[in-house]
């Protein structure tokens, strides 16, 4: 690698950094009605339209709540009333081959429509329920989980 190549490589990396540098949201709340919450660590926030959702967040709805979320890879999922889902894993850096998605349906009703991650790497998508794991080869699933 001569100096020109090195400079070129550094320039590429520094140009590429802004897209990945900030701890970026996995997705955003696109649909909300009734009581719905985002739980981040010990913090419980009322879910609002446009609110970002991060890896490890849990989302929860009350008995009158509904929630719809779109992730950065076009994955969509929703919760019916009285439901709770954890976005236990989300990685979407296709250029580096890092893609992963795990949704843990803790209780209630959930729907899932696969996005780019399932297309790029079907084995990278897992939906978890208390008693089994669902491996998804696209595209749409509905789950109903009785609380443990």
């Amino acid at each position, binding site marked *: 690698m001569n100096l020109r190549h090195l400079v070129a490589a550094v320039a590429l990396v520094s140009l590429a950094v802004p897209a990945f540098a900030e701890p970026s949201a996995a997705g955003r709340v696109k649909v909300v009605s009734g009581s719905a919450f985002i739980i981040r660590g010990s913090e419980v926030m009322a879910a609002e339209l446009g609110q970002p959702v991060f890896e490890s967040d849990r989302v929860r709805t009350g008995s009158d709540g509904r929630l719809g979320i779109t992730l950065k890879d076009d994955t*969509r999922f929703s919760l019916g009333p009285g439901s709770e889902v954890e976005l236990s894993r989300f990685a979407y850096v296709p250029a580096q081959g890092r893609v992963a998605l795990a949704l843990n349906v803790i209780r209630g009703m959930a729907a899932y429509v696969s996005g780019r991650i399932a297309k790029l790497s079907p084995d990278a998508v897992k939906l978890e329920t208390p008693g089994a794991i669902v491996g998804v080869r696209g595209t749409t699933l*509905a789950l109903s989980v009785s609380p443990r």
Partner: protein
Amino acid sequence: MRRRPIVLTAMFAVSLLAGCGARKVKQPELPGQALVVLLPDPETGAVGRAVVSNAAGKADLVAARDSTVTIARRAPEPVKTLTAAEVKDLFGDVLAALPPPQRHFTLFFRFDSEELTEESRSLAPEIVRAVRERRVPDVLIVGHTDTAGPKVTNFDLGLRRANSVSALLRQAGLDAAAIDVVSHGETELLVPTADGIIEARNRRVEITVR
């Protein structure tokens, strides 16, 4: 006492109804029990595949509305295909809460330029419409180039192309905060070519509205 026959009749009717109810698919009730249903894609109707498994066994969901019931330490129940009415009854509510599907657009450019082709320029109003239809729009604009010229220059050209589309959409009134601009340079060719090849279909910006 005179009323008893009526009460008995009513109880009989209730037990009949309950009998019908038992054949209907029920929500899981045991702690940690789950019902998993494979559904056709809401937009395309395509049916994927899902494998439901735990240490005790697995169930393959392969056809529209195939379902299984799971609980820890027991193999998933044999696959049962639900009717469309049963799916609507159980999941209509949660399916209605799914956000609208993403839309993709591809715009093409003149050689070595961030100027759109005439045809692509005319697509702009449709993109703006797709954005405005959404209550919470996210727009991802990814610039691409062909393999003519050095990689670094192409990375920069891809970025300029993406920025020019971003400017066009902002002129149309789109909020800059909803827009993400990225360049992939010559690393993701639509039409695979060797290095140094001029290819109009690779000179493009891909837009995702979600």
